[in-house]
């Protein structure tokens, strides 16, 4: 101690002290700092409470104060966190106006609020959980098997390459080009709106990942050239009849006209 006291007037003493102080502050901050919220953190009682508050403010008008459902909206007991995450993160809920179908729009809740709402609804009854990043990683999937499953289960509504399509009375199956992998997985798992449920017994988690892999491949477009929306005979027919035939008629008129 005496040696330390003797050197307290040393030239380097302020520098050493400053370094020690910085280290200490940094260490304390690292231990005490709040960790940023991540999707896979387990929900806390606090999340559920906060989610309840958000629910009362934004959702209870239609879904009822205890999420038991009303004549306007279904009960949310047992729909699970996956369903809430899908509906809220794609902006479909809270619904803007009554209509045949809740459209996708910019999300109204932050990621944290979405997680809190999901935690609250999940606390009401057991339901499908939000899938992990590994479950929805298309790079791990088999696109060829995904194509087989997509053709049988999905293509009749969503189009063979996921371009979307019309349903009855103003409803539609949305295009899947822009939908995130997590949302694709959640939609299969929970069956939002008109879409039926494809639970893990029907399409296993591995098979769901195969379907995601197939859909990711479709985002590159067609190897043949312009896809014209991949809508089949409508857009291709318009192109062939209007542009193709128009050019041919123009050429025939030019060939037949006399030179001036």
């Amino acid at each position, binding site marked *: 101690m005496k040696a330390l006291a003797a050197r307290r007037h040393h030239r380097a003493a302020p520098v050493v002290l400053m370094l020690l102080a910085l280290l200490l502050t940094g260490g304390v901050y690292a231990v005490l700092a709040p960790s940023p919220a991540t999707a896979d953190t387990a929900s806390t009682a606090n999340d559920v409470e906060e989610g309840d508050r958000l629910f009362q403010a934004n959702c209870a008008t239609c879904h009822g104060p205890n999420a038991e459902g009303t004549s306007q909206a279904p009960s949310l007991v047992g729909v699970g966190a996956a369903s809430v995450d899908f509906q809220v993160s794609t902006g479909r809920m809270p619904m803007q106006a009554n209509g045949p179908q809740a459209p996708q729009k910019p999300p109204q809740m932050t990621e944290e609020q979405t997680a809190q709402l999901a935690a609250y609804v999940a606390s009401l009854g057991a339901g499908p959980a939000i899938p992990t990043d590994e479950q929805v990683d298309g790079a791990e999937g088999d696109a060829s098997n995904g194509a*087989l*499953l997509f053709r*049988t*289960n999905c293509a*009749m*509504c969503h189009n063979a390459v996921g371009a979307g399509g019309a*349903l*009855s*009375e103003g*409803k539609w*199956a949305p295009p899947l080009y822009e939908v995130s992998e997590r949302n694709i997985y959640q939609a299969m798992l929970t*069956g939002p*709106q*008109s*879409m*039926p*449920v*494809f*639970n893990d*017994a*029907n399409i296993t988690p591995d*098979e769901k990942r195969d379907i995601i892999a197939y859909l990711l*491949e479709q985002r*590159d*477009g*067609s*190897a*043949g*050239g312009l896809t014209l929306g991949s809508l089949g005979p409508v857009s291709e027919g318009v192109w062939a009849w209007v542009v193709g035939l128009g050019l041919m008629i123009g050429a025939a008129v*030019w*060939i037949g006209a*006399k*030179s*001036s």
Partner: protein
Amino acid sequence: MSENQNPTPGRDVTTTSGAQDPERFTDPGVPAHKLRLTDTDPAARRRNERLVVLLFAISCLGAIGSIVAYFAVRPDGTTEGVRLSTIALGVTMAISLLGIGIAAIHWSKSLMSDHEHVDERHELASSPEVREVAVQHLTDGVEDSGIARRGVLKGAAVSALALFPLTFAVPLISSVGGDWNISKFRHTLWERGTRLAYDPTGRPIRAADLTVGSAAHVIPEVPQEYMESHEWITEKAKAVVLLVRLNPEDLRSDQSPEGETWSYDGIVAYSKICTHVGCPVALYEQQTHHLLCPCHQSTFDMADGAKVVFGPANRPLPQLPITVDDEGYLIAQDDFAEPVGPSFWERLK
């Protein structure tokens, strides 16, 4: 030009009064030849020549570009790579071909002679002399063959000619008519105790595994080897079923006859083949319980015996009677009670 086209100037031929119509319209003849700019102006002629040369030159560049594109833009296996290569080849090839075509037509239109020529049609019938000679040749030939005198020879020739077409007609007709067994349209692979399996994996379906709101595309459970056979494809096409699980209180009716239950705890299974023209009906809307056919928008209510609620279909989809076995797997009680798919003659109903 009108004075050339109308041989009787001043006579209005468009009047509706019959009295003023000409007796007979005469051939107006060819309009007077009009000289083009290239016929009168040497500068324009040279200009057009240069244009044609330029078009051919563009075509040459397109052809060379196509060869360059073939070697320079190789498809690298990715979708974009293949697309880029296809577009580069297609566009350069189009430039090359269109250059030739447009240059040739412009050449003929602007530089070649454009004088009108009239070629009168000749009489269709040949002259009497030619016809007489032809008839003479035929008569001589018949005389020479002696077909009128040699009866056996005539019979043999006619027999040979008549029999030969049978060598292809018989196999052709027989292969067309070999498969008129329509009774097979009445039955599918489903029979008592056949398990329901997911399409395309073939995993059997447990009733407990189906969530309310589920839709499953179903095939009968068959051995794996059978699924590789050609017969399976035709049998599967008849046997496919769409299975949905509703809330039991939402299920208003099904097709069960008096004293039988064809559904199980809100699970109903209907043929996926439309009763209109046989498209696979598969667009199921979970909230309205409507099943929509993609071909002609026939809509069936799955909660109400698959009755037709919209569209050209005339009958409900046939229901597959189902129940569960000891292990909880869904099984068929029997085949469909009526033929699946659109009408055919001799159909029961």
